[in-house]
């Protein structure tokens, strides 16, 4: 292991290293992470209060990952997610209103109200779908990458997956296929140490999953997934390599989700208690908190700017929600429409 143990919640509480980074970009990171956080915190409350009918898997605490990755992507890339993908989509600059509408099952949603929180699609942003079947999208992302290669385009594919999804054999098949095909794909593993109620130590003999990439000779990087700058730099380099035809890579981001596996509870995880001590330690590794501290270290006067930003985001989130609430549900004939093209 190159670093102090990333899986230990006592480590990595300090501000992140932002030296040499453009301030505007850092503020963009802050804004994007905060927007996602506020959106998910709102979803938690609305789910608790019965406004949302279906399950929501919240990624609060993990925002640094998609926010760090997305600036190096563009809309002709192919990004695939899973059940916990609000952030993956929003970080691409996709519409928050459409996300809320989708979660509410409204016809104006990203998936026209046919998908809900776990099934998101936004081709214009380069988001090619998220589904709740573990690892279901991973080979699809490899296929998208093969297609980019065949078309000699500069597009790449990105597959977000969790430490649990990695246990599906299809993931190692996908890595091997990507490697042998030199497919332009970046696998991003959000290792939050849990698959629903099961800690990784109950499921795997090691808490780091990049050993699966090693097995497929896919170059990999293990990093602090709550450090948006580290994610950004590593992803940028990887994506450059991949775009230039060097084949697949994998980035393993150690992180933690503040909410439980599904819905709004924080300390109860599909019935398994996580200790409040752990949760609080992880809150000290909050990616937004740490970036904020770093920004204040550079320039104390930035606080006002951040406060303004927060006010604006609160308004935006609130109004997107209210808009979505008013939207219509899909017409009944949508039930049989769209089964075939």
């Amino acid at each position, binding site marked *: 292991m190159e670093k102090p143990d990333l899986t230990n919640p006592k480590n990595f509480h300090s501000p992140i290293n932002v030296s040499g980074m453009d301030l505007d970009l850092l503020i963009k990171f802050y804004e994007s992470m905060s927007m996602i956080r506020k959106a998910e915190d709102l979803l938690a409350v609305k789910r608790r209060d019965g406004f949302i009918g279906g399950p929501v898997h919240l990624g609060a605490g993990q925002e640094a990952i998609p926010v760090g990755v997305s600036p190096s992507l563009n809309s002709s890339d192919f990004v695939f997610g899973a059940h916990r993908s609000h952030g993956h989509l929003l970080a691409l600059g996709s519409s928050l209103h459409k996300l809320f509408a989708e979660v509410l099952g409204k016809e104006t949603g990203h998936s026209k109200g*046919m*998908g809900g929180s776990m099934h998101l699609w936004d081709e214009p942003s380069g988001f090619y779908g998220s589904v709740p079947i573990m690892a279901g999208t991973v080979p699809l992302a490899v296929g998208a990458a093969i297609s980019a290669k065949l078309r000699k385009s500069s597009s790449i594919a990105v597959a977000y997956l969790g430490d649990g999804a990695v246990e599906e054999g299809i993931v190692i098949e996908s890595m091997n296929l990507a490697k042998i095909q030199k497919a332009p794909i970046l696998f991003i593993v959000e290792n939050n140490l849990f698959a629903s109620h099961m800690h990784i130590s109950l499921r795997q003999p090691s808490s780091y999953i990049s050993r699966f990439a090693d097995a497929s000779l896919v170059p990999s990087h293990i990093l602090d997934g709550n450090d948006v700058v580290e994610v950004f730099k590593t992803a940028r380099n990887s994506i450059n390599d991949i775009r230039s035809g060097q084949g697949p890579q994998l980035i393993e981001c150690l992180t933690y989700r503040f909410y439980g596996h599904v819905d709004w509870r924080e300390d109860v995880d599909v019935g*398994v208690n996580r200790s409040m001590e752990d949760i609080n330690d992880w809150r000290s590794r909050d990616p937004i908190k740490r970036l904020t501290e770093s920004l204040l270290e550079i320039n104390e006067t930035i606080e006002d700017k951040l406060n303004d930003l927060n006010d604006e985001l609160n308004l935006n989130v609130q109004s997107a929600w209210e808009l979505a609430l008013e939207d219509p549900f*899909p017409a009944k004939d949508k039930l049989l429409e769209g089964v075939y093209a």
Partner: protein
Amino acid sequence: MKTDFGTAILSGFDYLLENYPEVFVIGQGLWSPWYVGTTMTDLDKKFGKERVIDTPVSESACTGAAIGASLTGMRPIIVHPRMDFMLYAMDAIVNQAAKWSHMFGGQAHPGVTIRGIINRGGEQGAQHSQALHALFAHIPGLRVVMPSTVTDARDLLIASVLSPDPVIYIDDRWLYSQTDELEEIVELDLSKEGPECLMEGNDLTLVASGFSSMQAREVCDLVANKGISLEIIDLRILNPFDASKILESVRKTGRLLVVDGGWKACGMASEVISSVTEELELGALKSKPLRITLPSAPAPTSATLEREYYLSNDRLIDCIINLVR
């Protein structure tokens, strides 16, 4: 005292683990009090985490492992908290479990029980709502069991696990809150079980399974009030399928309605209707046979569409009235 369906399953597990040291359980969510409803609560605490094994997210290998253990004389139960996840385990189920007895001249006994839970509604959508029993009922070598009553929930589970054959035991979460008196446990011989008549009647034979059978029971009185006497046959065992009781019933009522919670094409309702019409004397039917199934579409998420997608008791009653008129 009445017991609910979920607790009846739990008591089946309890009985098996208590009395049969060769029984063990493996699957996702077994160490969580919430994952599989109340059907397995605290089994790990009572019987130990060695015999009640929660697993990595690897349906394919875990199902295969249960099959392999059964070959050596164990009686494993592999639990899939949603049937949808079993699609990752199809090779183990269809190419392995279903084939090994025949392929090795009757010497290998993959006496595994594969429990698949139907867990739908609640805006969970296309990949988290499926009722795939027909896929398994198509495969020779598998026994497919779908309890609908509280007693069957427990006793057919026990019979499945004690059967030397691979069994797909399918329970629908929409049945869990139903309650009934539970008799003493009877160890049934699964190979002797088949469809059963839950309600005798004269106007229409209504065949169903699992949650659909419960719906049939629920509407029975309501249509009786309208002067229609339903004969309800609960399939219970979908494969190998024995149509004889249904045939007998249709000879009496002259009408056949099959309600199935799965899809129509090549589904269980198709099997019932073709099995009956192949055997039934020409002219014995007073009206055309009818299937009520899911629409031919994946499950939607939006609640407004879910209400259309799943059969309501009201729609079922309308269909029955139309058929008998």
